[in-house]
Structures are given as structure tokens and as C-alpha cells.
């Protein structure tokens, strides 16, 4: 179940990141890439910490 949730989370984050990079303004392309990478790392880290230290 946990692996499944990690897969869903990673897949979702990648999809939304791709979406942002497609629709983002051209003059902020590198910023958008940097921000989406940051959110991906943050999302995975937050889920790891919450599921490890605050299990349901």
C-alpha cells in the first residue's frame, strides 16, 4: 500500500510539474523548472516524514 501511494504521489507530482512547464510563460522557463523540481522534492520529503513519523 505504501509503495502504491509513493507511486501515485510521484506520478501526480510529475504530471503537474509537466503541466506547469507546458503552460508557464516562456520568459520564466528556467524559474518554472526550478520551482517544479523544488515542489517535487518537498512533496516526496513531506510524505516520507509524515508517513514515517505520523502513521495513521
Amino acid at each position, binding site marked *: *500500500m505504501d509503495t*502504491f501511494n509513493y507511486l501515485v504521489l510521484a506520478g501526480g507530482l510529475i504530471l*503537474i510539474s509537466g503541466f*506547469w512547464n507546458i503552460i*508557464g510563460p516562456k520568459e520564466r522557463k528556467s524559474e518554472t523548472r526550478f520551482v517544479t523540481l523544488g515542489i517535487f522534492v518537498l*512533496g516526496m520529503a*513531506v510524505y516520507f516524514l509524515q508517513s514515517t513519523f*505520523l502513521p495513521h
Partner: protein
Amino acid sequence: MDTNNAEISEKKATMSGDDFPNVPVPKEYRVTWHQLTFVWFGAAMVAQLYQCGVTIGTGMETLSLALQAIFWGALFLAVFVGLNGVIGQATGCNAALSGTYAYGSKGVVIPGFHIADIGWFVVMIAIFANIMNTLIPQIDIRVFSILFCYLFMTNGYIGFKQMVILNKVAFPVLALVSMYGLYQVNSLPGGISGLFEKTFSSTFTMGAAITAIIGTWSAGASRAADYFRFARSSKDTLISSFLGFFGGFILCIGCGAIWGAASESTDIGKTLVMLNMITLGAIMFFVQTWTTGEHSAYITSTALPLSIEVMTGKKIHRRYIILMVGAIGIMIGGLSIQNYYVPFISFLGYVIPVIGAIVMTDYFILAKTKYHWSGHEKFYSIPVNSQDVQHHIFNPATVPALLIGMLLSWKLPWGIPAVNGLIGTAIVYILFSLLFHKIGVYQKEVERNAIFANQEVS
């Protein structure tokens, strides 16, 4: 800052593509009334309105009484939205920036530094993640929460025009699902007309029901200027308030009341199951939470940069505030935040209308008299970034008005807390303005006006 600097500042904001958090919206950026109506139609519809509608629909003796309460509550809110919107339209400033006229160029930190909408953004997403986790229990609520926080800041990070598009999509979805729900109710034995013959155990008086209805939107309505600064005229503002806000609000809460009366349950999830519209309901709540979340993040991003600039002297782009709001949501959205919804919304009901009341009283009453704290006549017609406005640093009458207003809102055992706070703050603010004028507290403001007037002449 002199007039030239103000003009340069305006041009920079225009060129940056930002949504003018620190300057009035230029005339060429104003939008038509039907664009604003779409925005407000989407913004007015929040998931809690369905919940409130279901509760009122089953909590008054008859459905017609519930619909009467909804009408009066919605009318009060639409007027409130319209009046705040007129200030935004007239000054071209968002709610926080237009506060400069009432609070002063440094005092504007007070209305600007409301971070309540960060909480609202997180709570809304936590509630929706909870609904989705009920529908798809295999996926962890924390995964839903992280993904929705990320997705729902998309339009806020990219800009205002995309929000209009989102609300245009939201409009047909919400309207169709609401209507489909009514169709489903009509398909039940007795139909909609049969609901008016039903009687329910009465848990709400008319006053209590109107109180609950006003409570759902009083905080948001006090910040209507954030959107209506884009309006071309006060007539457009009033039309959009009544067609957009009133229409969206009535449709949302009215459908909730009828659905609730049909299902006789106060649980919105059970109501959706009974009306056989689980999938449609999930889609509708998805769109609703997205539009409302966007609205909350947007408001925070227009208010906070101004306060940060006043305190630190640094300008922060609106989109970085959106990222901050989203990051906070990602970090705490999955921690059962939805359980704190009621205390959170009660806190907003006490605080936010009080802050808005000072601006409304200042614009509609005191600015039209000789007792205005700035000593200016027609103070609101002076550009907000001009020296004539900026040299008025802090209005001391706002402090007792805020403190006593919040106390009245919080402690009075009768009436509607938001309305108590609003009226109480207005009265206290007027009284202290008169008192300070009488004892000469505002004399230095008048003297400075004379000094700047002389400098301009020379």
C-alpha cells in the same frame, strides 16, 4: 514618493506582468462587468455553502422559511460585497492597499498582514482530500492533500487571466450539477413541490439561520475590492455583485437547502449518495475547491507583499507568495486540518469584518466630512502612491476601533458576531475620529498638508 516616481512604479508593475499589488490598476487594465461576474460567480460558490444549505434546509420548520432566510442573508452579503467593491473600483486598489487611505502608509500593515487566507486555502484542500479519501480509500489522504495543494496553486502562480478561464469552466459545471441535483430531487416521489409541504424539526430561528448564512461569507465579502479594483465603473461593480456573487451564492446554498430537504440528512456525502450523484458531486467539489483555493491564495498574494514592503522595504512578487501558501499547504494539509474548520472560521468571523469596517466607514462617512484624519477633502481621489497620501503615516483612531470592535464581535452574547463587529467598529471609529479632531491629535497631519502644498507651489 512624488508623482513621477509613482508613475514609474506603475509602469514597472505593468511591465512585470504582476497584478498590481502595490499600485492602483491602470484604466487600460480594467475588465468588463461580465468578466467580473464570471469571477465572482465561481468565487461565491464554496463547498461549505452546500453544507450550510443542507443544514438550514433540514433545520427550519419548512423549506419556504429556509429559502426566505437564504434570500435575506444573501442580499445582506451582496450589498456588503458591492460597497467594498465600490471602494476598490474608485481607488483602483486592492483591499489592503486601499487601506492606506484609512490606516496610513505604515498603518496599512494592519489590514495587509492578514494571513487568514493561508489557513482557508489549507482547510479547503484538507476537506476535499478527506472527501476523495472516502471515495478512493486506497490512496492516502496525505497524498491527495499534497497533490491538490500543488495543482490548486497553478493558476495563482501564472496570473489573473487564467483565473477567469478557470471560473468560466467552473460556471457550467457548478450550474449543471446543481440543476441535475434539482432534477434528481424532482424525480423522487412528491417532487420539489412536495418538499414545501414537508415539516422538519425546527432547530433554527429565522435570525439564527440568517446569522449562519451571513457567517459563511462575511470575511470574504470584506475583501471584495481585491477583484473589483479591475472594474470600470461603480455601476459595473454593483451589477457584478448582484449577478455574480448573489447569483452564485443563491444557486449554491439554495440547491444545498433543497437537496437537504429531500434527503432529510445534514451530511452532504450521504445526500449525494441518496441523489445518486456521487461522481458528479466529486467533480463539482473538485472544481469548487479549486476555485475557492485559488481565491484564497490570490487574496493572500495581493495583501502580504504590501505589508512585507512596508516592514522590510523589499518588494516580493505575488507569485512567490502563492508558492509559499502552496508549500505551507503541502507541509500541513494532510495533518487532519479539516477538524479545526469550525474554530478557524469562527476566528475569521470575529476579526476580518472589523478590519474591513474601518475602510468602509472611512470612505463612505468620514472622508466626506471635515473630520477626516488626513485633513484632506476628497482624500480618496488623490493617487494612493502620491506624497499627499504617503506622508500620512498612521491613523491612531484605528487602534481603539479595532480593539473595541473585535471585543464586541467576540463577546456580545446576542446578534450576529460579524455584524456586531462591523457596526461597533464603525461607531467607535467615528467617535474616536471626532475626539482626536477635537483635541488636536490630527493637527500635525493638517500642518504637513500645508507644508507639502507650499513645496508644490514653489
